[in-house]
């Protein structure tokens, strides 16, 4: 008699648009310049990191300031796979995910004993300790870092095919491959988070975010859920880190574990766009990219401007730009609301 519905017209339209965008994205290297591909690679990897941080903070209530630990360890594991084990860089990316998982388990063990701001600081401290330890790894360049060997970068899986397909040079083929992998990663991560939200676990995550004690009182295992979210985010962040440094082909502890690049900017993207929604980081990364392009030549003024914008958004639009758009239009591109349909029910929410 009663029915549960989640489907909306906007959701169906979004699904079609996303499919078209993915296909267009795959075909884009045929017409786009190398610079455009590199810009898109940056946007896609930052979007992936932002969706993952949003999963942690926006859905799981885990405000981590130490996600650079997983970017860095993922990148270094990929370098170790290539340099020490002789793996092809594409396969070595998977090693990045595995290394991030191995680091995430003890990190969660210690950090979950802390709450709120202490959790945030704790994750940051763990990331710094990891950076200092990695800087002692002389085989991978110690504190000054290292580059992927020439024979490895010239022999990356799939680049021969890309060169033949698009008639480009080796470096450009590597960029295209990295871009396609970034596209794959962002689709899997965003799609995975959306699936998670629409699954039974999505309800549990929302319940824990809203009220942990009440969530436990209805049988939600809040502790296990937080572990799951933290580990999933760490693995995907590790894969993203490995991919980012596959594209640059050069690594150093300061670059791989940079709190500004891999956490502060990511938090900015999520806060500006709108925390706790899938649409928010998408809007946020576009705004971030535009600001970055426009203000790149202004040195520290660039960072101060980002900070001021973030403060203004937090004060006047705490749900971010997407929150404003959604409140005015009632639009939800990725609908997750379960609606009860049947007799005697009023429509609105």
């Amino acid at each position: 008699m009663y029915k549960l519905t989640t489907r909306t017209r906007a959701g169906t339209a979004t699904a079609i648009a996303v499919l078209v965008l993915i296909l267009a994205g795959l075909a884009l290297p045929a017409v786009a310049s190398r610079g455009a591909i590199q810009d898109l690679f940056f946007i896609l990897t930052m979007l992936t990191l932002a969706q993952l941080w949003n999963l942690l903070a926006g859905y799981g209530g885990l405000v981590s300031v130490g996600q650079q630990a997983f970017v860095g360890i993922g990148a270094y594991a990929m370098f170790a796979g290539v340099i020490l084990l002789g793996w092809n860089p594409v396969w070595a990316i998977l090693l990045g995910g595995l290394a991030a998982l191995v680091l995430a388990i003890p990190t969660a063990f210690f950090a979950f004993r802390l709450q709120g701001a202490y959790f945030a600081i704790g994750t940051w401290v763990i990331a710094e300790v990891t950076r200092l330890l990695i800087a002692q790894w002389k085989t991978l360049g110690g504190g000054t870092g290292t580059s992927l060997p020439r024979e490895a970068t010239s022999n990356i899986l799939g680049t021969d095919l890309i060169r033949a397909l698009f008639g480009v040079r080796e470096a450009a083929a590597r960029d295209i491959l990295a871009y396609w992998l970034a596209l794959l990663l962002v689709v899997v991560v965003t799609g995975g988070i959306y699936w998670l939200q629409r699954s039974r676990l999505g309800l549990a995550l929302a319940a824990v975010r809203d009220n942990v004690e009440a969530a436990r009182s209805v049988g939600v295992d809040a502790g296990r859920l937080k572990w799951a979210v933290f580990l999933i985010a760490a693995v995907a962040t590790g894969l993203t880190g490995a991919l980012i440094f596959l594209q640059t082909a050069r690594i150093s502890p300061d670059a791989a574990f940079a709190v500004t690049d891999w956490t502060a900017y990511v938090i900015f993207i999520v806060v500006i766009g709108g925390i706790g929604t899938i649409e928010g980081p998408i809007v946020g990364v576009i705004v971030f990219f535009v600001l970055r392009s426009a203000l790149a030549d202004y040195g520290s003024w660039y960072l101060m401007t980002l900070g001021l914008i973030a403060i203004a958004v937090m004060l006047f639009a705490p749900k971010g730009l997407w929150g404003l758009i959604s409140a005015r239009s009632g639009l939800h591109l990725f609908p997750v609301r379960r609606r009860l349909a049947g007799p005697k029910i009023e429509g609105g929410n």
Partner: protein
Amino acid sequence: MILRLDNVSKSYGALKVTDNVTVAVPRGEALGIIGPNGAGKSTLFNLITGNVLPNEGRIEFLGRDVTRAPAMERVRMGVGRSFQIPQPFEGLTVFENLLTAAAFGRGGREADMVDACAHILDETELLKKANVVAGTLSLLDRKRLELARALATGPELLLLDEIAGGLTEGECKALVATIRAIHARSTTIIWIEHVLHALNSVVERLLVLDFGRVIGIGAPDEIMASREVREIYLGLEV
């Protein structure tokens, strides 16, 4: 017996908030708990639900020792509770609040819980507002949601913590009628309440707590006539 507490005690440092409590609740009974503020009523609830673990004593639910069992396990065994201050999942709708409780409290697929949730919403007069975000509800509706969400877990034992507090006389009457209907289906109820006329119209026995100790248990008329209870709880000089 559905619930049995044997010599249960809980202390925070030197402060004993539950002092050697022994009580047995038969299946299908409605038991009221009264006592002055700070008597340890909510702590006793937390001990039964597993949110707090006792220092001494034993707690049995459905014949099984649950003294050390975590709260989630007790929910799945059939202990449902409401909170004194309503704690809805504010970002979820009323229906989603129930769906979460049903899916995790009973364990099952969302799609299989829809009719049961709709039935509970109807019974608690929330069906019209099923798709309303819980954070926007009035106090009465938040109280109803507390009750509805606890029911959605499929409880054999329902613990109600001051669910009538802060309501108008008319609102209170409507809520009591709902609780009576739930009790009529032989759901066991333990109810902490300061609104005595509401409580006494439902429960078969009253338990009085003071400084964590049970100072009386019995039929509501007998308890209300007790000299000790009148002095301690009602503040009357006799």
